[in-house]
C-alpha cells in the first residue's frame, strides 16, 4: 500500500521547468528520501504535495484518493526555509499553528504540554520567540509539525541548523514516529542520514527523476565486484595467483603488509578468488567494496559510469 503516489508531475515556470514528468510511489510506514542537488526541483515537488502550489499536469493520490484540501490535516510539513513569528509568544504561537491544522484548542494544549516536556522547553512557553536560541526554535518547529499526528510527515532538510545532540534527538523521534505508523518523506543532501534512515529513495536532477528504489537494491545494483584484500606475503606471488579469477587494480605494500584492490573477473565467485590467493598469502581481511549513497549520488548527478564510482571512491 502506498500512502502517496505522484503521477507524471510537470511544473513549469516562465523561464524553466521545475519538474518534468516525475512519478513517485511512497510506501506506507516507511522513510523515503528525496535526494537531489540544489535547484533540482525537490522543493517544487514538496510544495505540490503540500498543495501550496499546483502542478501544471499530473496527479497526486493520497492513500489511493485524489489529493484535496481535506488531506491537509493528515500531512505535517517542516519546510527548509522555516521560521516563526518573532514577536509572538512560544506557546500562543504553537497553539495557533496547531489550530490551523484543524486541532481543537484543548487538544492542542494537552499535546503541546507533552511535547514541550519531552523536549525540555516547557519553561519557555510564555517567552517570545526572539528570545529563544536557534536550536530551541527548531525544536518548536519540529513539535508543531508532528503535533497533529500526521500520517505523512514531510521534512525538508530537517537536520540543518541542529547541533549533533539535537540532530540525534530528532533522528530518534523520526524513527519512533515511523514505528508508530507514520510515513516520512524527507529531502536532504546529508547522505549519511540517508543510509542510516531511509528505506527508499528517489534521486531528482535537473527536474527529472533519474533513480529510485529501495536503498538496499540500489546499492546492490551499483555493486562493482571489487574486493579489498589485506595480507602479508609476496606481492609478486599474490599477483600471479590471481590467475583468471580477478584483475589487480591497485596495490600498496609496506614492510610485508600488503593491500590490494581486485576486480572479480566475469563469472567468477568471491570464494574462488579467495581460494586462489590463500596458498601464497596470509589473509588479514577480505571485504567487498560497496559504493556509499554519496558516491552513487555524485556519480548519477555527474552522469558518469558506475565503474567510475569506484575510481572516485579509491581516490
Amino acid at each position: 500500500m502506498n500512502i502517496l503516489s505522484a503521477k507524471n508531475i510537470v511544473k513549469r515556470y516562465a523561464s524553466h521547468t521545475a519538474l518534468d514528468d516525475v512519478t513517485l510511489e511512497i510506501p506506507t510506514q516507511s522513510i523515503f528520501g528525496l535526494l537531489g542537488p540544489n535547484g533540482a526541483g525537490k522543493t517544487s515537488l514538496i510544495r505540490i504535495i503540500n498543495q501550496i502550489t499546483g502542478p501544471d499536469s499530473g496527479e497526486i493520490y493520497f492513500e489511493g484518493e485524489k489529493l484535496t484540501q481535506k488531506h491537509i490535516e493528515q500531512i505535517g510539513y517542516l519546510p527548509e526555509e522555516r521560521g516563526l513569528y518573532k514577536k509572538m509568544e512560544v506557546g500562543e504561537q504553537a497553539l495557533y499553528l496547531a489550530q490551523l491544522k484543524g486541532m481543537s484548542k484543548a487538544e492542542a494544549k494537552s499535546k503541546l504540554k507533552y511535547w514541550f516536556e519531552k523536549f525540555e522547553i516547557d519553561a519557555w512557553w510564555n517567552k517570545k520567540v526572539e528570545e529563544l536560541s536557534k536550536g530551541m526554535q527548531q525544536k518548536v518547529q519540529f513539535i508543531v509539525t508532528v503535533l497533529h499526528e500526521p500520517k505523512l510527515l514531510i521534512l525538508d532538510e530537517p537536520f540543518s541548523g541542529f547541533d549533533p545532540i539535537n540532530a540525534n534527538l530528532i533522528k530518534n523521534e523520526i524513527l519512533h514516529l515511523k514505528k508508530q505508523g507514520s510515513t516520512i518523506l524527507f529531502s536532504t543532501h546529508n547522505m549519511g542520514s540517508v543510509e542510516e534512515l531511509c528505506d527508499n529513495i528517489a534521486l531528482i536532477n535537473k527536474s527529472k527523476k533519474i533513480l529510485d528504489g529501495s536503498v538496499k537494491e540500489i546499492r546492490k545494483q551499483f555493486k562493482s565486484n571489487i574486493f579489498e584484500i589485506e595480507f602479508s606475503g609476496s606481492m609478486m606471488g599474490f599477483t600471479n595467483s590471481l590467475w583468471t579469477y580477478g584483475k589487480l587494480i591497485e596495490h600498496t605494500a609496506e614492510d610485508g603488509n600488503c593491500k590490494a584492490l581486485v576486480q572479480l573477473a566475469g563469472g567468477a565467485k568471491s570464494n574462488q578468488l579467495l581460494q586462489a590467493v590463500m596458498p601464497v598469502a596470509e589473509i588479514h581481511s577480505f571485504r567487498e567494496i560497496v559504493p556509499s549513497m554519496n558516491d552513487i549520488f555524485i556519480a548519477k548527478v555527474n552522469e558518469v559510469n558506475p565503474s567510475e564510482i569506484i575510481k572516485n571512491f579509491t581516490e
Partner: protein
Amino acid sequence: MNKVSLIIKREYLTRVKKKSFIIMTILGPLLMAGIMVVPIWLSMQKKEMQNIEVIDESGFFGSNENIIKGSETMSFDYRIDSASGKTESLKIATADFYDSNYDAILWIPNNIFSGGKAIKIFYKKQLGIVSEEYIGNTIGKVMYHAILNHNKIDLNLVKAAEENSQIKVITEKLEATGKSKKTNTGLFMAIGLGGGVLIYMFIFLYGVQVMRGVMEEKTSRIVEVILSSVKPFQLMMGKIIGVALVGLTQFLLWVILTMTLYSAATVTILKNIDLKQIQQKEQVIKVGADLDYMNMKKMDKPNIVTEVWNDFKSIDIMTIFLCFLFYFLAGYLMYSAMFAAVGSAVDNEADTQQFMLPITIPLIFSFVIAQTVIQNPESSLAFWFSMIPLTSPVIMMVRLPFGVPAWELALSMGLLVLGFIFTTWLAARIYRTGILMYGKKVSWKELGKWLFYKG
C-alpha cells in the same frame, strides 16, 4: 473554527496588544482634544500687560478725542518733557529705554498725515503680531475719523452705510420637484474634506501595516509553514480583514475618547464659562433661526455654533455616514490588497519603494484633486474621478455632502466593488508566488509573469 477567522483573530489580537497601538490610541484623542481645547484655554488666559511709551512728535494724538486707547493687554503712556510740556525727544527716550520698565517705544513722526504714513516701534522683546496690528489699526482708525471730520462728513452716516450694506449669502438647492433646501457650503466643504482626509489616512496607515505584516511573514520564513495549512488567498484576506478591524477599533476608540476628553475638558478647564448663559442665548437664536432671513433686519447676528448646528440637521447625515463607512472599507480593501502584493514581492523595506509608487500616486493624486473638486463638486472632473475606483473613495466622499444623484452613487459604488474584486484577484496572483520567492530582486516584468502562473 474556520481557518480564516483564526487568522483574523491572530492578526487583530497581536496588533491590538502592541504597545504602539495603545500609545497611539491614547495619544490620538489627547492630540485631537488638545487641538480643540487649547485655543479656547489660551484665549482665556490673562495675558501679560505690555506697557508702551508714546513719543508723539505730531502732537495730534494728545487730545482727548484722538487719544490712543489701551486694551486689556496694552497700555499707552505719553512721555512729556517736563520743561517744555511737549513730547519728549526720541533721543532721550531711547537713551533711558533700558532703565525704564516700558516694553516698547512707539514713535509717531510729525509728518504722519502728510508724509511717510508710518510709525515705528522700538522694542526690547518682540511684541507679537497681534499687538503690532492692534497699534497700527488703532492709530489708523483715529486718523480715519479725523480725516472724515476734517472734511465735515457725518461719521454716523458712514457707519450706517457700512452696516446696512453688509449682506449674507444664503444658498438653497432647488430640486426638480420644486422643493428647495437650505444649504451651507462651508459646512459641506468641512464634512466632505474631513471624510476624504480620514479615508485617505486610513488607507495609507493600515495599507502599509498590511504590507509590513506580509513582509514580516516572508522574512521570518513562517509563511511556508502556514501555507501548508491554508491557501495563500485565505492568509492574505485574513490579514487584510484583521488589520481593517484594528483600524475600525482604533477609529472608534478615538471618537469615544475624544468625545469623553473634550466634554471632560469643557467641564473642568472651561468651567468659568457660564454654560447656562450659552444655552439661553442659543434658545433665543433658535427661535430667530426659524424666521425668514429675508425679513430679518435688526436682529442680533445668530450665534455661529447654533447656525451650523441647524444647517447640520438639514443634511442627510445618516446617508453620509453609511456611505463613509462603505468607501472607508471598500477603498481600504482595494488598496490593501495591492499593498499585500508589494509586501510579498520584496525581501526588505528598501525594495518596496519602486512598487509603492504606482499605488501611492493615485491616492495622493485623489487627495490633491479633492481641493479642486470641493470648489466645484458637480464638474465633470468631479464626476469622473468619483467613478474611477482608484480615486472614488476620497473624491466621492468629498462630493457627498453637496448631494449626489442616486444613480451616480450606485454606479460609483458598483465600480468600486468591481475594482476591489479585480485588484484583489490581481494581487492574490502576485502574492501567492511572491511570498515563496526568497532572495530575489524582482522587476516589473517578473511580476507580470507571476500573474500567469498556474496556482
